[in-house]
């Protein structure tokens, strides 16, 4: 009954001070776009977009889903799929250890959340890549989860949205990762045949095998402002051609100009944009 009155002296040093520290640290910070000092709360209220210059800060997969689904609520699918480390791969760490460290830290089993819910009242499936999980890289788990989401979209006649943020195929699963590009693209062929709309949203950064498969296969390919989008990473290109890349190269606006994006849409407008597209294509 009186559990809250138990003495707490031996538990922590000074929680009040720790909290104060976090608060003052996190309250203000500098915008990567315009270098102005921003108030974190103002940024949060603007969906992590700088109110001064429009710079889009990265957001994690769960935050993205919250912005898109009605009432920020969704059902998660296939959350327990995990990689088996088929190559027994070792880099600076063992891949197994890298995976379990990530799985504890985030906490998720791999670099993608697959979810279902409603968007302005319409049932939709949304997959969001998590950049923080080994660079949003695509291995067996991402391949399987997206393929299942596509199959679920076909069975339930629900449109599909995939929000990408990734460095590409996951090196640690070798050619098995590579083949996920085929697996997902082939499933998207079936979605296409089923005449169900798929909107691909490309966010900063989307490169490699992710761009060269599902991220470029939307009925609509939508970029977030300023997102880096490409096949080869800028560093690889610079090394190949041995010159500096032009300003704005491989950014959303560059792709829009070259005909590879249907639109560049600001984050606060994205939900409405998707909703309207589905209406125009389906109703």
């Amino acid at each position, binding site marked *: 009954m009186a559990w809250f009155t138990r003495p707490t002296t031996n538990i922590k040093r000074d929680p009040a001070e720790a909290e104060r520290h976090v608060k003052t640290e996190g309250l203000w910070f500098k915008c990567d776009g315009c270098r102005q000092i921003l108030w974190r709360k103002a940024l949060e209220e603007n969906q992590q977009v700088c109110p001064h210059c429009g710079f889009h800060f990265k957001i994690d997969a769960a935050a993205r889903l919250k912005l898109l689904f009605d009432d920020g609520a969704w059902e998660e699918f296939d959350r327990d799929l995990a990689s088996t480390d088929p190559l027994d791969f070792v880099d600076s760490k063992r891949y197994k250890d890298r995976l379990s460290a990530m799985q504890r830290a985030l906490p998720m089993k791999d670099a993608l959340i697959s979810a279902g819910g409603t968007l302005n009242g319409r049932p939709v499936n949304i997959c969001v890549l998590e950049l923080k999980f080994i660079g949003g890289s695509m291995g067996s788990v991402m391949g399987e989860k997206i393929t299942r989401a596509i199959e679920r979209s076909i069975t339930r006649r629900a449109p599909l949205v995939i929000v990408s943020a990734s460095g590409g195929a996951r*090196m640690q699963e070798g050619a098995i990762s590579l083949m996920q590009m*085929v697996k997902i693209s082939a499933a998207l*062929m079936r979605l296409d045949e089923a005449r169900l709309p798929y909107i691909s949203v490309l966010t900063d950064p989307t490169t490699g095998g992710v761009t060269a498969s599902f991220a470029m296969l939307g009925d609509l390919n939508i970029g977030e402002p300023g997102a880096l989008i*490409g096949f080869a990473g800028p560093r690889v290109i610079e090394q190949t051609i041995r010159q500096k890349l032009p300003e704005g190269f491989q950014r959303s606006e560059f792709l829009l100009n070259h005909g590879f994006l249907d639109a560049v849409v600001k984050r606060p407008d994205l939900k409405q944009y998707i909703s309207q597209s589905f209406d125009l294509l389906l109703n």
Partner: protein
Amino acid sequence: MSDESNERIAALEKELAKLRSQVDTGAAGEEPTEVQANSAWLAVRLARHPKRPHALDYIERVFTGFQEIHGDRAFGDDPAIVGGFARLDGRAVAVIGQQKGRDTKQNVFRNFGMPKPEGYRKALRIMRMAVKFNRPIITLLDTPGAYPGIDAEERGQAEAIAISLREMARFGVPIIAVVIGEGGSGGALALGVGNQVFMLKNSVYSVISPESCAAIIYRDASKAEQAAAALKLDAPALLHFGLIDRIIEEPGEGAHTDYDQAAAYMKATLISSLAGLSSLGPQQLIDQRYEKFRRMGNFFEEAATV
């Protein structure tokens, strides 16, 4: 030719000579070293061997009456991909290959076998024509990777590859893909969506080049041989993981020692494979191809913990 391009050729020749000397060391059969124990790295060196037969070397020996067609009807022609129609044992087929050059001049022309978007779009145009006229499609994969350059990005390298993957899944004709040398990542895979996928014995197929992988994991591109072993990119490994259907034999020390024999092995495999696929109708071909790639992936589903 301008001084500038002569200069570029001279520089490339120097670089190529350096690469060749690296390739030749060890591949020429000196005393056994630890490196030779690494079969993956040996395969990388053979797959890149300067004398290894390229797509056109096989096309000329395996097929008859090859008629090359050019261009993507939108931007231009990409010499890093060759394709057209020909006969395989009397049967008309579409054949498309990623093409490397033999000497420096040819390599500049072929862009070292690194295709650009117009190459993939040309390949897709040929494949669509094959579907229209009900011809099987045979693709030969051999590229270090899709070209990572400004122009390729401007013209949608990623989009071109992605569309190729999706459309190959849709075609109701038999598709056979053969990795003949370097199966360099998405750039090779773009033509690799086959009902049957084969690798020549000394070819490799990888998500990333061993050099780039080494640069990332060891911060040292010279540790490529270690990276090759870690990536498990040789034909037996791919067969083990169920990512390819069969390994095609090579003569003696490798395909470069006997082009005719290498081509004969490939031809026999293609003919028997095509005979097997010919019993399937269009929808069965699409479904068989789909199911084959659908199964690829290694994961487990943990029991949900409450």
